């Protein structure tokens, strides 16, 4: 029963979502929105689990005197400060929370992601070799798309690189993307059906105990 009831619960929730999609009845729409709110509420509780995992990882590092344990204090203290201001003073503009977000989180996030530009360039230099038609095609298209995104190619008058890169994006690249999307959609439908019918149970694992 410890497994059957959750499977039945998942099936009922999923079956309702499928039915409401095809039946345009206002009451079903109302319940649909209510169930979405319920999922958001449960997700909020689930966030605590994630935070617990983060804390446990850092506390374990501190306890075991890991070589970098001092930085775990940085993570925990920065969490505590941001969380304190966010919960008690709100998240509106012109609050301390907003100040930390704009002057610490946003620059850090943008810089960390911009750092990837260097690593991608380095990886591309080391691995990109035009050894076959396919590899050459990938390399040439990547270069054209990059050139199409920089303003300096405006000065090249004899060929419309911007226009060509847009065409590459909107026709051949879109065709490839659509082919992949069909496969993705079939995969989503198959996996979802497996979950609803209780064939796929990996998300229910880890609970342990009798009656699995």
């Amino acid at each position, binding site marked *: 029963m410890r497994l059957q009831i959750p499977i039945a619960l998942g099936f009922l929730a999923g079956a309702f979502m499928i039915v409401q999609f095809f039946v345009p009845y206002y009451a079903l729409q109302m319940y649909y929105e209510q169930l979405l709110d319920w999922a958001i509420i449960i997700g909020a509780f689930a966030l605590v689990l994630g935070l617990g995992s983060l804390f446990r990882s850092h506390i374990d590092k501190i306890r075991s005197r890991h070589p970098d344990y001092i930085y775990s204090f940085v993570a925990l203290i920065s969490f505590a400060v941001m969380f304190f201001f966010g919960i008690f003073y709100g998240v509106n503009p012109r609050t301390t929370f907003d100040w930390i977000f704009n002057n610490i*989180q946003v620059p850090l996030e943008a810089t960390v992601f911009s*750092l990837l530009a260097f690593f991608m360039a380095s990886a591309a230099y080391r691995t990109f070799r035009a050894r076959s038609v396919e590899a050459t095609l990938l390399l040439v298209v990547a270069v054209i798309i990059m050139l199409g995104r920089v303003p300096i190619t405006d000065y090249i008058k004899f060929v419309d690189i911007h226009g060509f890169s847009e065409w590459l994006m909107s026709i051949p690249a879109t065709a490839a993307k659509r082919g*992949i999307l069909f*496969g993705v959609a079939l995969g989503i439908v198959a996996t979802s059906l497996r979950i609803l019918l209780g064939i796929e149970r990996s998300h229910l694992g880890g609970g342990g105990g009798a009656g699995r």
Partner: protein
Amino acid sequence: MPEPSGITEILGIPTDIIGLWVAALLTLAIYSFLYGDNPVYKFAEHLFVGVSAAYGAAIVYHQALVPKLVQPLSAGLIQPLLAGNPAAIVWSKATLLIPGMLGLLIFGRFFRGYQWLSRWPIAFVMGLGAGLSIPRSIQSLILEQMHGTMQPVWPLTGGGFDNLLLIVGVVCTLAYFYFSLPHRGVMRWLSRIGIWFLMIGFGAGFGNTVMARISLLIGRIEFLLYEWLPTIGIHLGGPGIG
């Protein structure tokens, strides 16, 4: 507690300038990783982890938990009960006890012997997501994409050729992923052309990703050159002068 929004300076220094310096130093701290892993980078990295996690938690608290659970439950159920006026209970709000209870069951994972209780909310959310995604995937990822692909191909000028190429590209890409037939004869050529289209797609994806990162890099460098450096008297001109 009062809002600290009135603070505009600390020790006589405007908070905007302090923010600028904090952002600039953290930017340089992250870029120091290009030289090698170092304590300054590790500090900035862990700061990022802590602040980001707290940001997510605070936003979820204020934008999901409070308006969707705490406030409606309080107004519709708890306050009437505390006031001794059960007639004022809004029973529709009491249904929120269900997601509240399901949410609490997640914490069963922390208690030995009760871990199985956490399956209920997980199964509910997974079932909801699965049921939601089946019709929507079919609609948006299959039917709409097919509709977008099957466009008129005649006359070839004026968009017809592009539409034809789109159809050929999609069919050949699908042929490459179709493994129920051996890739021999016509199928070999179709799948070969499919690979070419896929390579163009991957190349375009790679180029776009690189340029998105480069764009972020330009943004950070512009910030350092045109917003931070002027605070120490170095004016280089250019956009966004602070």
